[in-house]
C-alpha cells in the first residue's frame, strides 16, 4: 500500500486516487454496467424460452424430440462462448451478407449459450417433480400440455429458482467475453478508460467491485424471492 502511495507521489499528481478515478469515470462506467445488465437480462429472457423449449423436448416421451434437444445442448455446451460470439458476429455476416450490430450478435450468442444450460435446468426441475402429479392431472382428463402448465411447471419452477439465479450470475459474468466483439459493456469500457489513463491496477479493482456489488445484490434478492414463494411450506 505504501509503495502505491509513493508511486502516486512520484508521478506528481498525474496518477489519480481511487476517488478521483471514480469521479472522472463513474458515469461512464455505470452506463457500461447498465449495458451489461441490459445484455444479460435480454439474453436471459431469450435463454428462458430456448431453455423451456428444449427442456420440454427433453422430457417428452418422443425419442425424436429428446434427440433434437440433446444435439442442441451438446453442440452449444461443446463450443466456447467466445467462439460462438466470433461465429455469430464475424462468421454469419461473411456467409450471408447480413451485418449484425454488436448488441444483437451478443444477445444471440449469450441466449444460445445460456439457453443450453437453461434447458438442462428445466429438465432437471421437471424431473424432480413426483410423477404422481402428472398422473393425477392426466387421470382427471387434462391433456399433457395443461397438466404440464398448470401442475408440473409451477412446481418445477420453484425448484429451478436457485439454478436460474446461478445461471443469471454466470451469464452476467459471461457478458465480459463479448468485449471481444467490441460491445461497450463494463470490461470493454474499462479497457477504453485504461487506454487513456494507464491506471491498470485501480481501474480493474473498481470494475471488479462493481461486478461484485451487483452480483451479491442479485443473489440476495433472489434468495429472498425464493423463500417467499414456498407454497405454504416454510
Amino acid at each position: 500500500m505504501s509503495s502505491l502511495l509513493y508511486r502516486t507521489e512520484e508521478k506528481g499528481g498525474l496518477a489519480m486516487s481511487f476517488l478521483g478515478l471514480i469521479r472522472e469515470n463513474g458515469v461512464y462506467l455505470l452506463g457500461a454496467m447498465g449495458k451489461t445488465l441490459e445484455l444479460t437480462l435480454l439474453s436471459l429472457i431469450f435463454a428462458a424460452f430456448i431453455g423451456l423449449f428444449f427442456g420440454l423436448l427433453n422430457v417428452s416421451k418422443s425419442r425424436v424430440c429428446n434427440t433434437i434437444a440433446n444435439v442442441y445442448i451438446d453442440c452449444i455446451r461443446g463450443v466456447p462462448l467466445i467462439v460462438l460470439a466470433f461465429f455469430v458476429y464475424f462468421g454469419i455476416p461473411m456467409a450471408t451478407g447480413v451485418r449484425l450490430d454488436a448488441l444483437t450478435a451478443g444477445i444471440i450468442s449469450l441466449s444460445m449459450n445460456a439457453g443450453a444450460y437453461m434447458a438442462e435446468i428445466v429438465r432437471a426441475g421437471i424431473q424432480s417433480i413426483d410423477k404422481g402429479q402428472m398422473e393425477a392431472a392426466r387421470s382427471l382428463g387434462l391433456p399433457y400440455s395443461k397438466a404440464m402448465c398448470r401442475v408440473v411447471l409451477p412446481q418445477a419452477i420453484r425448484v429451478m429458482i436457485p439454478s436460474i439465479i446461478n445461471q443469471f450470475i454466470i451469464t452476467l459474468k459471461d457478458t465480459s467475453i463479448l468485449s471481444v466483439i467490441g460491445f461497450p459493456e463494463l470490461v470493454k469500457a474499462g479497457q477504453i478508460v485504461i487506454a487513456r489513463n494507464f491506471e491498470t491496477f485501480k481501474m480493474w479493482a473498481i470494475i471488479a467491485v462493481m461486478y461484485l456489488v451487483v452480483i451479491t445484490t442479485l443473489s440476495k434478492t433472489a434468495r429472498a424471492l425464493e423463500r417467499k414463494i414456498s407454497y405454504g411450506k416454510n
Partner: protein
Amino acid sequence: MERTSKISIKGLRKSFGHLEVLKGMDVEIGEGEVVCLIGPSGSGKSTFLRCLNALETITAGEVIVDGYDLTDKKININKVRENIGMVFQHFNLFANLNVIQNIMLAPVELKKITKEEARKKGMELLAMVGLEEKAEVYPSKLSGGQKQRVAIARALAMNPDIMLFDEPTSALDPEMVGEVLEVMKSLARDGMTMVVVTHEMGFAREVASRVIFMDEGVIVEEGTPQQVLLNPTQPRTIDFLNKVL
C-alpha cells in the same frame, strides 16, 4: 342379476420390457358394482388398475370402458378419463394449489362449468368428505387421511361414472384408515361403479359385490366376498388369506 357392462376386459396383457406383469386377464364389471382386487404385492393389481384409464399402455388384449376401446389409438383418451376418477396410494394432490383449487382445476380447465359453479360444487364435495373448513389450505398442511379425502373429492368433481382406487389406505396411519373407508362406503351405497385395489379385507367383505384374487399376473379366484374370503378353494388364495387375516 344382469347389469349393463361398464368395463369389459378380454385377454389383457401388459409387459414392462421383458417382464410380463399381466398374463391375460378377462374381467367384466357391471354398472354399480364394487370390485375389490386383492393379492400379494407384485401380483399386478395396480398395473391392472392403471390399464383401466390407460395410465399404462396396453401391450395386448382389449379393454373397453364406457364403450370406448382403450387400445384404439383414434379415441380421445382425455375424454374417456373425464369419466373415470382415480385415487392414488400417495394422494398426489397438486402441491402448488390449495384444496379447493385442486378440486376446481379439472372442471374449470376442461370448461365443464364456470369458476363459480366449480367452487360451489367443490364446496359441496368437501362437505361430503367433511373438510369444508380446509378449502383454502395447501395440501402440505393436511394429514394423510385428509389428503386422501380431498383426493376423492377432486376425482368426483368431474362427475365420473367409474372410480378407481389404487391402495387408497396403504400410506395412511392406522387411525386415519377409517375416515377414508367411510367416504368410499358412502360412494358405494350411492351406486358408484368402483374398482378398488386394497389390503383392507374388512372393507372388501363389507362393501364389495365381487372380490378378485390375483397372483403373478392372472386371476386365481373370483366371486362374492363370501366365496373368496371365507370359503376360498384355490391353495394360493388360502395361503394368502392365512398370511393377511
